[in-house]
């Protein structure tokens, strides 16, 4: 039976993980390869690396990171963060990334999704959708790290990216992100119902029950989180035991 996936997300800058990772037994918590290997051993199903480097060396450092991670890691990983061209995507895939996630570039020029899917196959093209809720406008899509409201409806945009050839949607609720109050179940459920490609829910995970809810009530295919894993608040193995006890298929 196909299992629900648990995905830790690592923020990287200049080839190093950032946002404070507290882990015993890691000699250098900033080393993305060491951290990735640890998560893989603990039972992570995939990893996402989000590159927040803003310098001109970005592309080089990201390609080098992808190579280092791919050399060590025997589970799939996605790379995202400011990726904008066919050449960027090709360099990352050729060096061992399994999937590449695009966000602002797709909103800027939606045809990029079609081009990438045709060239590399839908299976490796993830479109990240960052959404925020307001009572007036419902769920709308934001870009540029959440500073810019595109005015697009999140469900309609998700449907469009899937039709253009995205193989997966990485759906982040910016309204829930950092709250630890749980995933946005209404948003996740609406997008999951609207598209026939897998949906990764992100933003708001604070407890094991939050993962149960997003799988059972919102039909997410995967749950992504960062800080609760980095700070050891929830271990991946114990989370998966909990999910299995709740009747959710997971890989143990």
């Amino acid at each position, binding site marked *: *039976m*196909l299992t629900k*996936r648990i995905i830790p997300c690592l923020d990287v800058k200049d080839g190093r993980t950032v946002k404070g990772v507290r882990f015993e037994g890691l000699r250098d918590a900033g080393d993305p390869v060491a951290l990735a290997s640890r998560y893989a051993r603990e039972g992570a*199903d995939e990893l996402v690396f989000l590159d927040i480097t803003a310098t001109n060396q970005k592309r080089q450092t990201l390609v080098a990171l992808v190579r280092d991670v791919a*050399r060590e890691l025997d589970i799939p990983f996605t790379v995202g963060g400011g990726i904008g061209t066919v050449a960027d995507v090709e360099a990352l895939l050729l060096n061992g990334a*399994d999937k590449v996630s695009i966000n602002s570039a797709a909103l800027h020029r939606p045809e990029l999704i079609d081009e990438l899917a045709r060239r590399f196959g839908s299976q490796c093209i993830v479109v990240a959708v960052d959404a925020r809720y307001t009572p007036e406008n419902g769920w709308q899509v934001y870009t540029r790290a959440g500073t810019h409201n595109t005015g697009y409806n999140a469900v309609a945009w998700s449907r469009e990216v899937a039709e253009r050839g995205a193989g*997966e949607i990485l759906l982040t609720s910016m309204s829930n992100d950092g709250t630890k109050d749980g995933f946005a179940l209404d948003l996740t459920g609406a997008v999951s*119902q609207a598209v026939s490609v*897998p949906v990764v829910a992100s933003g708001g995970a604070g407890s094991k029950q939050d993962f149960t809810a997003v799988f059972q009530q919102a039909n997410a*295919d995967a749950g992504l989180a960062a800080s609760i894993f980095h700070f050891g608040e929830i271990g991946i193995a114990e989370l998966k035991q909990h999910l299995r006890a709740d009747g959710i298929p997971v890989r143990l």
Partner: protein
Amino acid sequence: MEIAVIDYKGGNVQSVLFALERLGVQATLTSDEEVIRRADKILFPGEGEAASAMSELRAQGLDRLLPTLTQPFLGICLGMQLLGTHSEENDTELLNILPFEVKRFPADAQHKVPHMGWNTLQRLRSPLFDGLNAEDYVYFVHSYYAPVGDYTIAEAEYPAPFSAAVQHRNFYAVQFHTEKSGPVGTRILENFLKL
């Protein structure tokens, strides 16, 4: 041992090279007929779309070479599908090494397409799977599948059974990414190298 990984611009070959490297095995990425013919083992990875993969194979003459090989051969993902007769993906004629037709998964509310993630292998019947347990998981990413037939040596379900692995003579192939399936995938690669 000489290992050739077939190079036809077919996607993420680097992961396969790294997986072999982790096993302490050096492999050559090549489309050269002589190098391929004298290799002890052949790996044939693949990702992406069937028609463009076939036209690249034809452009390099690999469509004629591959069916004549006699050493142990392992197709991975699209590299498995290409061994069939025909694919629904852009109505593509394939290498015709194994007698299956590649079909698209029908999507429904509970079964997204692509079939993406970790799934169990069932009804294992090959030395390729020595040492595996009934509930071991491997990683799949695909929208098309080969039905179950006499050539099937492992099955998975989504929701109906399909071929997770196939074999005919020296041609072995797996639908999942053995290079990305953790220790289970590593064991399958090791088993292949021992064939």
